[in-house]
């Protein structure tokens, strides 16, 4: 059994990679591609400014790389085994990565013969901290140089965007075909051999100026990076994780930051998950406690009035669309103009709840709900929406399983030997009918984490459903991949758990 579980666990790794890769590529290939949400706010921006903004964002989030490269980079960050230079951790817990590589400026061959390399002042001494350098001093030195480098880099990036804009103008004047890629960016390899043509346009002077500037910016960025690198190598902050051999280390997986919300992904998920779990932890027991007994009763009195009434009621509820039910609930049960309109319409807490005590308490002779009960009051309607459609499947399942078992030989034997009817129902039939119910719970659990988008939207509940949908709509790489990864992992684990539970509940099944 142990070997089996281990094998299943190891198999999960390639499966997870496959799932995340597929989802990522699907999103990357959809119109707009990864990071499409970032350009949503461009509105009436000037083209040049827009080009600069897009270039900045692409550089910050590494969106200029091709989708598979972006995926591999992400894998490298979440992998606990790291290669190459180790990250460092600053006192606020942020990972400081080695300075990014400076990209070679496009069309540099037009302006210089040889690419410049970083110039290091030969007289400069090897960088070393002063003996009395405190942590604060070190971080100040690092931060100052990091700022210098990002400024130099920003110059390079915006210079590049400006050059591309001018080139774009020349291209439209010369009507060169296929010089733009799918995202509308200039393809430099197409233009490269066309220098003479470009020189004939009115934009030539500007293109030359910008191109020469760009080479200068490149040199400057290289120099600043070199300086930053020496400071980074002197380790201004403690290193992350622990090293095994040089170039190989083990460290905490870094889920990265969502670029649509620019916050750590783990923080976003840990805010949303408790809310979704709370809703489901209330909803699922209610479903089970109502559906199973009524399924049993329906099986015992199969074909009777209760069987038919409960069956049609649950099917009717199951067929009622949740969006409509939610809106009707908000419109009537939350409207104070009706006597039954006593529920809150949105959110998880009332406005005054900041001042509440946690538990119900008596203040100035009035009973006050308290923070906890106030929250339960707020989740009543969302939970009702989650619950009402769930009875049908579970009670029908129970009923069918019970009826199957009722027709079994051992039940007939038990009846014949005079076992009490109550004992037959509970000890023989019900126990044996539990198997499918256990496995059903296992398959419900992953769905819990994904949340229910519709219900969260109607009741304005900031849960997982909203987070998942947003990450897809905004094509937010980190958030999307983390969500996919989590949902996939929980699903796979649940499947494994189901198999284990099977073999435990049914001795006939064994994994060898």
């Amino acid at each position, binding site marked *: 059994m142990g070997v089996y579980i281990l094998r299943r666990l190891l198999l999960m790794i390639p499966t997870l990679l496959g799932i995340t890769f597929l989802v990522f590529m699907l999103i990357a290939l959809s119109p707009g591609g990864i990071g499409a949400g970032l350009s949503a706010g461009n509105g009436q921006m000037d*083209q040049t400014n827009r080009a600069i*903004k897009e270039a900045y964002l692409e550089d910050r989030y590494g969106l200029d790389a091709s989708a598979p490269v972006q995926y591999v980079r992400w894998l490298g960050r979440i992998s606990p085994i790291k290669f190459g230079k180790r990250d460092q951790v600053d006192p606020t817990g942020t990972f400081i990565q080695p300075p990014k590589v400076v990209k070679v400026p496009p069309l540099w061959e037009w302006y210089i013969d040889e690419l410049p390399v970083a110039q290091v002042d030969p007289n400069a001494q090897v960088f070393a901290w002063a003996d009395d350098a405190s942590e604060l001093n070190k971080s100040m030195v690092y931060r100052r140089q990091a700022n210098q480098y*990002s400024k130099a880099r920003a110059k390079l990036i915006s210079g590049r965007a400006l050059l591309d804009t001018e080139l*774009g103008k020349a291209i439209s004047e010369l009507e060169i075909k296929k010089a733009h890629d799918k995202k*509308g960016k200039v393809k430099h390899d197409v233009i490269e051999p066309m220098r003479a043509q470009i020189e004939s346009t009115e934009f030539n002077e500007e293109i030359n100026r910008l191109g020469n500037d760009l080479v200068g910016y490149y040199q400057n960025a290289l120099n600043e990076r070199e300086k930053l690198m020496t400071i980074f190598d002197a380790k201004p902050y403690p290193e992350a994780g622990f090293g095994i051999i040089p170039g190989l280390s083990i460290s905490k997986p870094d889920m990265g930051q969502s670029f649509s919300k620019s916050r750590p992904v783990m923080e976003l998920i840990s805010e949303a998950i408790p809310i979704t779990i709370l809703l489901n932890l209330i909803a699922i027991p209610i479903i089970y406690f109502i559906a199973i007994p009524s399924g049993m009763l329906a099986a015992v009195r199969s074909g009777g009035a209760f069987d038919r009434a409960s069956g049609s009621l649950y099917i009717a509820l199951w067929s009622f669309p949740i969006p409509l039910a*939610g809106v009707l609930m908000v419109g009537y049960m939350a409207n*104070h103009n009706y006597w039954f309109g006593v529920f809150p*319409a949105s959110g998880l807490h009332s406005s005054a709840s900041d001042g509440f005590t946690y538990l119900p308490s008596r203040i100035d002779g009035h009973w006050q709900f308290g923070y906890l009960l106030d929250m339960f009051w707020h989740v009543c309607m969302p939970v009702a929406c989650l619950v009402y459609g769930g009875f049908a499947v579970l009670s029908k399942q129970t009923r069918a399983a019970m009826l199957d078992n009722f027709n079994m030989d051992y039940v007939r034997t038990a009846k014949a030997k005079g076992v009490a009817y109550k004992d037959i129902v509970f000890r023989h039939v019900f126990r044996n009918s539990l198997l499918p119910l256990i496995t059903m719970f296992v398959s419900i659990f992953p769905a819990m984490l994904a949340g229910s988008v519709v219900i969260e*939207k109607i009741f304005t509940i900031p849960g997982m459903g909203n987070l998942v949908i947003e990450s897809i709509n905004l094509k937010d790489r980190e958030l999307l991949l983390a969500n996919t990864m989590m949902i996939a992992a929980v699903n796979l684990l649940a499947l494994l758990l189901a198999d284990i539970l099977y073999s435990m509940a049914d001795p006939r099944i064994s994994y060898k």
Partner: protein
Amino acid sequence: MQNKFGLKDFVLMMLVVLVGVFTLMNIKEGDRRWTKTQELLNKVGTVEQQVAKLDRNLQEGEASTQEGLDAITGQLSNLDARLSSGEFSVSSSGGGSNTGGGSVGGNARDSWARPGSVPIKRQPKFGFAVEPYDLDGYSRGGEFTEAFPAQLSKLTPVLAEDTYARRINDQICETLAGLNAQTLELEGLLAEAWQYDPNGYWLRVKLRENINFSDGVEITAEDVRWTFHDYINNPELETEALRSTMTSIEKVEVISEKVVEFTFNQPDAYNLQAALGFYILPKHFYTQLTPSQINQSTALSMGSGPFKLDILDVDNQWAPGKDVILVRNEQYWGPKPSLQSMRYKVIIEPIARLTEFRNGNVSMIPPSSPQFGKVSREEGWDDFAYSLNWANMRSGYGFIGWQCGPRDGKLTPFHDKRVRQAMTLILDRQLIIDDMFNGIGERAVGPNNPPSPAANPEIEPWPYNIERAKALLAEAGWVDTDDDGILENERGDEFTFEFTRVAGSQTTKRIQIYLVSQCASVGIRCNPRIVDWSLYDQILKNRDFDSIMMGWAASSPESDPKQIWHTDSIQNQGHNFIQWDAGQDQYIDKIKLTLDASERMKVFHQFHSLIDEEQPYTFLRVGPWLRFINKDFENVHPYPKGLEQREYFYAE
């Protein structure tokens, strides 16, 4: 004996579990008390600081009063002495020297300015558009709750770009100058006066005395410089959106403690707005934080505005999903607002929003057009709420853009302006508003619409006139020669075109159906193409459409027309996606170079006339703002600028 789990054991176990749960809950309750106490202590701390400062000011004031008194007594005794010595004749010449002293004093007041003849624009004292203090039932206090239809993810100024964060930050942070709510003219806020180079290369700004951030620290010129150079233009911060639009400002220099000077790359009519229009942030607060702390923050908003964040703490920030709470800034330098606090709630579902408004839990909501039409007619509604429906400077417009240039190398029928005019004539825009927008909104007249001063007041919306449209089409060569009901040109090509609209909206769908039927009635075949919004960007960039339905939003009374209309924006995938080229550049270039506002408006009006004649877009509708506001609040006025919540007060 059988070891059976009986009822007694069950009860016992439940008791143990219950005790456990209660202990846990008690721990929670204790924790909650602890955090609340900490918050309270923090607040007490700031109050103590304020008291200490007030105390010090008072003492200094006393000392200076004492000094002043001493000086006056000294002068009096001096005068006394002179009087007694019989210097009566001095009195007239003394008067003369007094006036001289006045002008010298005036010079001293303007000593910050650049020498020369560049006029100084002195700004009036900053105040309310409608002062609430003397109105009936005025009281201080109360909480105003606004419901947002979308979830906020971030509040930190400049990093947060969406309109909702902006609306909250407008209460927390202030700019050097803002628009007057009624006249929409630029008025000094933190700036007391400025001097603007007539050639447009520099701008010198003098800050007001006695202005301070919400923690009481005075605002100096260094804060302005720092905000521009080390906050907005810091490539380590995620400020790309604003940074990439502020390229026209070359540098900001500190001249003296209260004087800054902006230098511009090139003269541009919009430089003044850009320079005076960004939030001034406290250097002393933000320099305590690392760039990644600022980048990852959710709500580190601090400024000098009339309200401030309820809790401003790096380790205990507001999290999305909670209400945003602002409290009155008791140290505000200007006229203080009457409301004690403002609360921003997110309610995504429109019906839930309306229900919460009816229940009195929310003071203001943006209703949908059908909600507004239906609910505002309910009996007794007017006693309960203000129903506001007005066009303001942020109202955008909807339009159908016609492809004036080639699509895939082939000209569309719309390259002829007579055809475009005919298209406008066959659409009854008032009918569209009445039928599809519940009668809410006005017909749009052009790229700028009233109340914007850039709209030409002489231009009326085009009429609805099928006959004239048919005549224009015939003039343009589109006649039904083979009697099949479809118009053809000389070459025999049928008049068909594609209408692109975004999927998912009922209103655009109805407009599409109307357009198709109106086209059919004059013999034009219109094929709808329905696409997802995410494809729009590509379609526009590639100019891959015959006609397209869209809307432009506005953020200021006159937006620079260059991006949408200039022929430069035809090249390189700019926003002139309809590829319209009819000599508009002369006006647009002139607009950008005319620094004087009233002169600029004249050019704007000429430009507007050209667009009206050419009809590159068929302008459909100006979308007004719709708001329901609870009548518990008074002094509520819809302004051309929007709403001014700092003026409201809670009437009991």
